[in-house]
């Protein structure tokens, strides 16, 4: 048998002295980035506190939010009522605490609905392409021609007031962002070489979708949803302020600002405190979103 020279060549990587390259855990890096800066941590804390406050509202609030006490109306902040009372004698602090429920529910529900609908539409547009793509995208463009507040105003006037209708109204208004994001991500990923490579290996379309494409869409979607909750809370506050929104007597921060506005001479706290609550909550979501974006965005890998 001919002894071939290359029989003697051992494959590299089997000798003892081969060191293992140090492995830096991706999860650890993400947590390090996220926890390394103060603002995302503050945002995260605010959100946790908010959720806790919403869940345990009955335990935290000193009074039921709708309990009227006309005798004690328009009180200044005191030890009995830390933020005073409104024109019907309801405790402002309790109303703010209960208001967190409304804001959180609306914010999260709207984002869930609009994201699901948007993702589905975006996927369809990107996947089917052609006419489907154009129809869906032009429809989104037309939808975006209406300022969100106006759109919500219109739909709310069409459907009437009430929490469900507000959620639908805001949901429709927020649909275009996740749709375009999803469509854009899928389209750009579809062209990438690693998708071609996976196809060449015989990966089915469905597996491709879940294993290659969706994981790439996940980070920007998550960031968008987080920041979107803040936007929805602001929009809902605006609607409640205009009187088109959640029906009284439910406590909503926007509605409280509207109520308090009339009595700003007597007790500015009535109008100012709900706004501060709105600010804190939106700030929390925004900072959380920023932190997520910095931690998840591949572009920042290794650049710290």
């Amino acid at each position: 048998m001919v002894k071939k020279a290359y029989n003697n060549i051992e494959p590299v990587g089997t000798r003892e002295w081969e060191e293992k390259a140090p492995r830096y855990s991706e999860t650890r890096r993400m947590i390090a980035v996220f926890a390394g800066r103060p603002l995302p941590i503050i945002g995260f804390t605010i959100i946790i506190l908010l959720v806790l406050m919403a869940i345990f509202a009955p335990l935290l609030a000193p009074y039921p939010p709708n309990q009227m006490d006309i005798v004690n109306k328009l009180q200044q902040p005191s030890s009995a009522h830390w933020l005073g009372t409104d024109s019907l004698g309801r405790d402002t602090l309790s109303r703010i605490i209960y208001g967190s429920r409304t804001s959180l529910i609306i914010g999260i529900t709207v984002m869930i609905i609009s994201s699901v609908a948007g993702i589905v539409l975006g996927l369809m547009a990107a996947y089917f392409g052609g006419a489907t793509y154009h129809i869906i995208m032009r429809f989104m463009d037309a939808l975006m021609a209406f300022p969100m507040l106006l759109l919500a105003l219109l739909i709310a006037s069409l459907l009437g007031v009430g929490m469900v209708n507000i959620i639908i109204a805001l949901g429709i208004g927020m649909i275009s962002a996740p749709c375009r994001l999803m469509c854009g991500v899928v389209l750009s990923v579809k062209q990438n070489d690693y998708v071609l490579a996976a196809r060449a290996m015989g990966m089915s379309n469905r597996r491709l979708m879940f294993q290659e494409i969706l994981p790439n869409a996940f980070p920007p979607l998550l960031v968008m949803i987080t920041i979107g909750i803040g936007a929805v809370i602001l929009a809902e506050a605006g609607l409640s302020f205009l009187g088109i929104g959640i029906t009284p007597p439910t406590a909503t921060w926007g509605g409280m600002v509207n109520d308090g506005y009339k009595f700003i001479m007597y007790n500015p706290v009535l109008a100012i405190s709900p706004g501060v609550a709105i600010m804190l909550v939106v700030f929390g979501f925004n900072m959380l979103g920023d932190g997520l974006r910095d931690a998840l965005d591949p572009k920042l890998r290794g650049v710290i």
Partner: protein
Amino acid sequence: MAPLLRVENLKTYFRTYRGLVKAVDGVSFEINEKEIIGLVGESGCGKSVTMLSILQLISSPPGEIVNGKVKYEGQDLLQYKSKSEAMNSIRGAKIAMIFQEPMTSLNPVLTIGRQLTESLEIHLHMSPQAAKERASELLHMVGIPDAKSRLSAYPHQFSGGMRQRVMIAIALSCNPRILIADEPTTAVDVTTQAQLLELMQDMVNRFSTSLVIVTHNLGVVARYAERIYVMYSGRIVESGWANDIFLNPRHPYTIGLLKCVPQLGETRQERKLVPIKGLPPNLINMPATCAFLPRCDFASDICRSNPWPSLEAVGENHYIACYYHKSEKP
């Protein structure tokens, strides 16, 4: 004759959140007039950072030039601040640089003509009209067809090889004394590689510029460089005439490198390609001993118990940083 550029004991460190990276840890070399130098080393050994440090293009929050002198015509450049007038008049006009990635090194929103004429206007104080003429000539010189009309084209309308030619034209536009080419051919295909290298040599002769070719590809420097420096882990480990280094490598790293490269004319039976065992070192928390130690076939106890050796002569203008050569019989 005094060297045109002399780098003495340059040290550039980076503070990362994992630790201090000593990218360049005591590098000294010289460039004389009208010569072609090769700086060779594997990825991550610090050769690019060395060149960027000369021009003070290191981004300052993580990186910092902590020590050393960069004497251009006798004057230490590191005394000047990075954004100062003095440094600006050196960059582009006296020392120019071309980079590895032609696809991203040109500004996508400006025309090629604009990117060429701006250095002409700034450094040579040419009028816009004269600058345009000169830019046209330069493009023609580097082999871009239809040069005059190409002045108003944008970078995305050029291929990678053409963009690199444009970069060469920009770099040479103000007749610099030194041209630094940082991995100029790594990102292009082999045919274009050959063309670009020929072009660079031609330009260098025409403009009487010195050229520094920074690369990990020995083949590239073998043909063009007169002198070669071999870098490893932030330091120079061997330097000398190109012929000497290729025919008579003395440092174990260089020996290892040459063993990996197939030579024309050999057959499989005559020689095996032997890779250098091990991996490039992590530049954070380096030990004080020789960095090549874990991978060295000639390692001995002297190496293990002494700090990194300094450069010593083993021949005419041939230096290595190794303890091995002392015990070897020449």
